């Protein structure tokens, strides 16, 4: 009986590893493949049999896209980072304020505004794009990075507030109360007690903002149309429209585009899972 159980266990493990391998291949192979493509000499891309392992590594594509070429990826990388970092900082700051108010303060209309936020989070961006464009045009925010920051911040604040709210809710009220007894004001309690404890929540919502901002495409395409201000997704899309499709350069740019989001996600992986699942699991 015991031996039979053991062999069943082994079989289960083998089945598990088999499916695990297929799953991981499916999700990771595309990354391997764009890296491979980007480091091959141009001529080899159109060979009838693709190389699965690079024969001679060549970084011409990276030199081309980072230099002052036709499509300036270095500039786009700079724009993307400026926008993403600003959006992240602003969202976290305002998010902390709002989440604290919803989680801890009693005030009329709290519920209504909170539900309104959830609705705002669910709004299709395409529905606000035309007015965004027209209003931004009137106030001179089209073709500015500030315009992108304002637009993306307004899209991200609801989710950030929601994640931080779920976090703040899990912090015992006693902690704050004892600080208040020691003479701390509400704002001091927020800054000295709540914020440090919620660091994982802050990190996870920060990474979520950063990842979203680095990838945002539709809104940016609507309000930015000068190459100088292109973010990475816009610059990447340019490859398809203006020039003949050069997959070596495209994949090299794609690798640069995913570099920052993927590194952050891997570094802060634990926190992100917590942030993404906030509210999804009742504890």
């Amino acid at each position, binding site marked *: 009986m015991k031996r039979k159980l053991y062999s069943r266990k082994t079989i289960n493990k083998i089945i598990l590893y088999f*499916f*695990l391998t297929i*799953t991981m291949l499916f*999700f*990771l192979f595309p*990354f391997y493949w764009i890296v491979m493509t980007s480091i091959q000499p141009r001529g080899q*891309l159109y*060979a*009838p*049999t693709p190389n699965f392992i690079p024969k001679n590594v060549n970084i011409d594509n990276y030199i081309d896209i980072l230099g002052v070429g036709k499509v300036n990826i270095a500039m786009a990388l700079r724009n993307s980072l400026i926008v993403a970092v600003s959006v992240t900082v602003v969202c976290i700051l*305002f998010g902390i*304020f*709002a989440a604290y*108010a919803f989680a801890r*303060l*009693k*005030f*009329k*209309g709290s519920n209504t*505004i909170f539900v*309104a*936020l*959830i*609705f*705002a989070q*669910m709004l*299709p961006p*395409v*529905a*606000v794009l*035309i*007015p*965004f*464009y*027209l*209003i931004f045009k009137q106030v001179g925010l089209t073709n500015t990075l500030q315009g992108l920051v304002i*637009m993306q911040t*307004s899209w991200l*604040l609801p989710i950030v*507030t929601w994640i931080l709210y779920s976090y703040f809710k899990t912090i015992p009220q006693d902690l704050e109360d004892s600080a208040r007894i020691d003479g701390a004001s*509400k704002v001091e309690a927020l800054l000295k007690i709540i914020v440090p404890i919620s660091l994982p929540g802050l990190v996870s919502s920060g990474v979520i903002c950063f990842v979203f901002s680095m*990838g945002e495409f539709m809104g940016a395409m609507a309000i930015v149309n000068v190459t100088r201000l292109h973010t990475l*997704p816009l610059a*990447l*899309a340019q*490859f*398809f429209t203006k020039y003949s499709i050069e*997959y070596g350069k*495209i994949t090299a740019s*794609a690798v640069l585009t995913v570099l920052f*989001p993927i590194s952050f*996600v*891997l570094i802060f992986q634990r926190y992100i*899972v917590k942030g*993404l*699942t906030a*509210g999804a*699991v*009742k*504890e």
Partner: protein
Amino acid sequence: MKEGIKRFFDFERSDAKLAAVLIAPTFILVIGVVAYPLIYSLIMSFGDVEFANIKDYDFIGFSQYVKTFTDPEFINAAQVSAKFIFSTVFVKLVLGTLIAVMLKERFIGRSISRALIIVPWATPFVVVGLMWKWMLHSKVGIINFLLVRLGIIEEYIPFLSSKIFAMPFVVVADVWQGTPFFAIIILAGLQTIPDDLYEAAYMDGASGVKAFFSITLPMVKYPLFISTILGTILAINSFDLFFVLTKGGPGNITTNATLFAWNNAFKFYHLSYASAISYVILLFAMMVTIIYVTLMRRNEIA
């Protein structure tokens, strides 16, 4: 209005003032920058504004909405959206559940697998699109190469310009990007199930499959529900992937409602018509959200 503001700044409750100050930035940005444009485009959708005559607005009632629902192009786009939403959410739910169940098991390499699986989620859709476009290349694509080598197809197929394959491969690319998110949420739900529930079931002689349907599924009902709602909203708004992979083609086979609205706004400059279309999309998304909020509140009470 004045009454409302007065109530908002009600100083009798000690918290109200602070709350007002703290919420103000978010309130102004979200309500101001989202609600104001929404009203703006609602007004626009009842007019006849084109980019060329942007200054003169004539109120024409529901005409743009009548046009929307009678336009065969929109009906096609709505069907494309429906097909896409249904298939991508369904596949993500099934795959996400299977992956979550797999990653809950104890095995060597579990934490690295859990870490790596979320990487596609961090990949911008534009990159997802060009990755798959490259892998699906009609002449040198790796997918064509492998399928021919494995004997599944006889010769290379231009998948993305094919009427049969274009849509399924947009779904594949979307599933690739979105399944990890589903898996993570479902996995978080799985981890709240106490092990003794399974032990008790196995003691009673339940099989693995039976345990899955009688314990696992009911216990992750809520995560499944949340991922379905969020996945549906994401799928309604899906744009980047369509734009990069197929540009809506061949013909209009992969033009979904969002891409159709975008084209009308920023390609053909029918601003009023595009506003009406996006309002139809918005109302649909709102319906989904109402279901979400209602059930979520019920869940919180229960």
